[in-house]
């Protein structure tokens, strides 16, 4: 694939383009003119209950004069790029932060901000669904390292973002969300499309802000940006009442700044570092457990230097896949529920675990009683609240992953004497290879497809996924060698992440990087409408649906733990995803036999534009090794009988 992503033309105002472009799924903005005239009640396209309609009419009656003042029919400024309104300040704050792409969906309450974008150089990508906007922004943040930005209107627009924000929050992905809100005077009146967005998103964001002043709204956005990017990254949100974005403002909000109460430490206490280094140097069976924080801190080179210098085997968590080349002699790959046998043996038998930037999620640890039970734990994390939250740290080192690894490197007087341990780890790698049986007369194995795509693409290819078995195969059977190439939904496990994430990743990636999405048939059905966006924006991604006509991961658990009662986990029918792709304007392909795999993948990957490969895989294939929920990592099962 060589196609360059075609950024949305800055002049393409989605509200304007929508009526003439039936593919965009944004035609609901056609009634936004009426919304603009007399919000919040006049959005006639919506069905309302008699009760709420009356309430809204009443609200509009009593508060109409105020609304008229703040919501003029004409745009509040001429959109020239001068700062005249709060919305201009919002746009200026984003530009000051270096934002290049925005993902969102228009709507009444956010219209002033969109209007202010009219002359901006920033490219806005109109997504089919706000969840897609949030996931695209999330993946954009993961791949680029800087916050991805998503936008939505009030009410349903904002609530549609919630899944994506919760996902980003769990994975500490940098995202800034901007949501429209009803005018300040209407807040609390159950106005049309009013939701308590601050209340709803509080538990799933790192921080959120209700903008209450046009003069400060640009600073609020800058603060949200700085917070999303700084310290432990995460999603932030600014709720933008329409009177605030329409209100007068003139100041350039300047560069993003974090508030004074947010002050993450860069380096750890030297005494603690020295003590940790001494324990590590004296260890017989040391292991480094690299978490997503290593990637977030851009500390993968530092990690690699440290591990190779001291000969310490490296295990990763799922978000850290790619943080340490999986083809390296010291690489044990991912530990946990579907981790490798050798990684799980190593984390179980280690006597000193250097854990960097991980929150010891239960899918990694299994039952904490049996997690690295012989190990002194050195825990490096920028968030002090992660220290001893799930697993007690013997040596807490609070600071930036890269900076603390540098400190540790300087403090290590000697390397651990671990030749025998390295040999043991090598032996485990021999004993527990990730293999699969692929008889030629059986349906195509998903692992084979994953390996075939890996073989057909360059090392820096980015992989996004949905959630389920296909995600685990994509993780296990692809050899990741670079950070920020594995882009998945880890902590929240959000089906539907894959396609919109591929779009966000594509726009953040280098032009010559390929982007592949491994999706499940179930996951694909949750967000496949975003294909319309990929086609419209000419976003070159290849979606490989590992189609088992089932929500397979659930079926696997039913096989193992629910007496093979396949309740609501099998699809008696799924659409032809290749034909569906063609209907969206993408290229569609189909794989049913091994002989077709290479040729079809070649064609799909070389097509300059979005393509979908509907790969019909063995519906009975399950994901192993497996540590059951809460189980003992060292007792991972290689097959169902061992559970």
């Amino acid at each position, binding site marked *: 694939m060589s196609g360059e992503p075609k950024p949305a033309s800055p002049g393409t105002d989605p509200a304007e383009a929508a009526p003439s472009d039936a593919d965009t799924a944004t035609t609901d903005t056609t009634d936004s003119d009426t919304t603009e005239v007399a919000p919040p009640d006049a959005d006639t396209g919506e069905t309302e209950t008699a009760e709420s309609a009356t309430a809204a009419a009443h609200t509009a009656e009593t508060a109409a004069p105020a609304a008229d003042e703040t919501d003029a029919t004409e745009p509040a400024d001429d959109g020239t790029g001068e700062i005249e309104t709060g919305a201009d300040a919002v746009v200026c704050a984003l530009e000051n932060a270096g934002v290049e792409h925005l993902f969102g969906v228009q709507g009444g309450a956010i219209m002033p901000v969109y209007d202010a974008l009219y002359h901006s150089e920033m490219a806005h990508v109109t997504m089919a669904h706000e969840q897609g906007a949030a996931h695209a922004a999330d993946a954009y943040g993961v791949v680029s390292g800087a916050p991805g930005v998503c936008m939505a209107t009030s009410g349903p627009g904002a609530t549609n973002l919630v899944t994506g924000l919760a996902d980003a929050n769990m994975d500490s992905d940098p995202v800034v969300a901007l949501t429209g809100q009803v005018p300040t005077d209407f807040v609390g009146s159950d106005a049309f499309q009013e939701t308590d967005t601050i209340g709803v998103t*509080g538990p799933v964001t790192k921080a959120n802000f209700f903008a209450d002043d046009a003069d400060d709204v640009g600073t609020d956005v800058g603060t949200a940006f700085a917070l999303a990017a700084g310290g432990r990254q995460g999603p932030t949100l600014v709720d933008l009442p329409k009177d605030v974005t329409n209100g007068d403002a003139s100041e350039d909000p300047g560069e993003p700044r974090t508030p004074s109460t947010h002050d993450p430490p860069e380096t750890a206490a030297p005494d603690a570092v020295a003590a940790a280094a001494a324990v590590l140097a004296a260890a017989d069976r040391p292991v480094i457990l690299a978490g997503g924080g290593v990637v977030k801190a851009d500390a993968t080179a530092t990690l690699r230097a440290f591990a190779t210098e001291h000969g310490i085997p490296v295990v990763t968590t799922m978000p850290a896949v790619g943080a340490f080349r999986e083809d390296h002699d010291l690489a044990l790959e991912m530990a946990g529920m579907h981790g490798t046998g050798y990684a799980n043996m190593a984390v179980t038998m280690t006597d000193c675990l250097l854990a960097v930037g991980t929150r010891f999620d239960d899918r990694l640890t299994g039952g904490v009683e049996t*997690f690295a039970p012989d190990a002194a734990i050195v825990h490096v994390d920028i968030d002090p609240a992660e220290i*001893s939250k799930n*697993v*007690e740290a013997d040596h807490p080192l609070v600071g930036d992953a890269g900076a603390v690894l540098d400190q540790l490197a300087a403090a290590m007087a000697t390397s651990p004497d671990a030749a025998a341990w390295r040999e043991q780890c090598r032996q485990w790698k021999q*004993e*527990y290879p990730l*293999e*699969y049986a692929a008889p*030629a007369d059986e349906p195509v194995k998903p692992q084979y497809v994953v390996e075939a795509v890996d073989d057909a693409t360059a090392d820096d290819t980015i992989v996004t996924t949905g959630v389920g078995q296909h995600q685990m195969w994509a993780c296990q059977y692809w050899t990741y060698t670079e950070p920020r190439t594995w882009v998945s939904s880890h902590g929240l496990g959000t089906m539907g992440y894959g396609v919109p994430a591929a779009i966000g990743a594509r726009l953040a990636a280098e032009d010559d990087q390929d982007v592949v999405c491994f999706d499940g048939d179930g996951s694909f059905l949750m967000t496949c409408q975003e294909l319309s966006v990929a086609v419209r924006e000419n976003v070159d991604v290849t979606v490989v649906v590992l189609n088992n006509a089932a929500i397979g991961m659930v079926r696997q658990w039913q096989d193992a733990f629910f007496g093979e009662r396949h309740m609501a986990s099998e699809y008696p029918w799924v659409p032809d995803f290749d034909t569906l792709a063609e209907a969206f304007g993408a290229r569609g392909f189909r794989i049913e036999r091994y002989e077709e795999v290479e040729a079809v993948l070649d064609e799909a990957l070389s097509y300059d534009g979005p393509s979908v490969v509907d790969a019909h895989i063995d519906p009975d294939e399950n994901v192993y090794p497996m540590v059951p929920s809460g189980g003992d990592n060292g007792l991972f099962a290689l097959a169902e009988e061992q559970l």
Partner: protein
Amino acid sequence: MSRNLDRRRDGLAGPEPGERDRPVGRRNADGIRVDPDVEVEHDPRRTIISAYVRDEPGVLAGVSGLFHRRQFNIESLTVGPTQNEGYSRITLVVEEPDPGIDQAKKQLGKLLPVVHVRELDADPVARELVILKVNGEAPDEVHAITEMYDGETLDAGPETITVRITGDEGKIDDAIDAYGQFGIREIARTGQAALARGAAETARVDESHT
């Protein structure tokens, strides 16, 4: 590159769970390494956490939401302004095992409006106020109890007597017990307010937050 299907692969292999090396140690449910033969339980303890916060909309919702979400056991929560305009003090009485108290403090510290968090040591200066409404049939006896607890009668009528008692938690619990004999109609308790004893600071606050 073409994949070689002829290469026979048999699926996952390797020693079964029962044949593997095993660790000797274990952890408890809090993830703390323990002697495998002794089960140590962390008993919950009651303590006071004081947070000095910027007074902005949503700060109280943020704190109470956090405690609810993370299942920290909270006995009382009080909030009020301080001598510094724009800043409030939130006093929380929590009952948790040590790891929970530690988590509660750290998670509180992550909330943006929170400037400083501190657990007050064993002997803080702490008081609570209770207003009790009891049946008015025995005014003299009620009065005697009120005197005994150094309280105050706020309202007295033929049907009910309402009194105020101030004290530490123990004293208030005792007083409530003592009034029980008259028939308590209603109780309103404020929860504890507290400061560190002596010259010790309850919150370490630099000038930018005063």
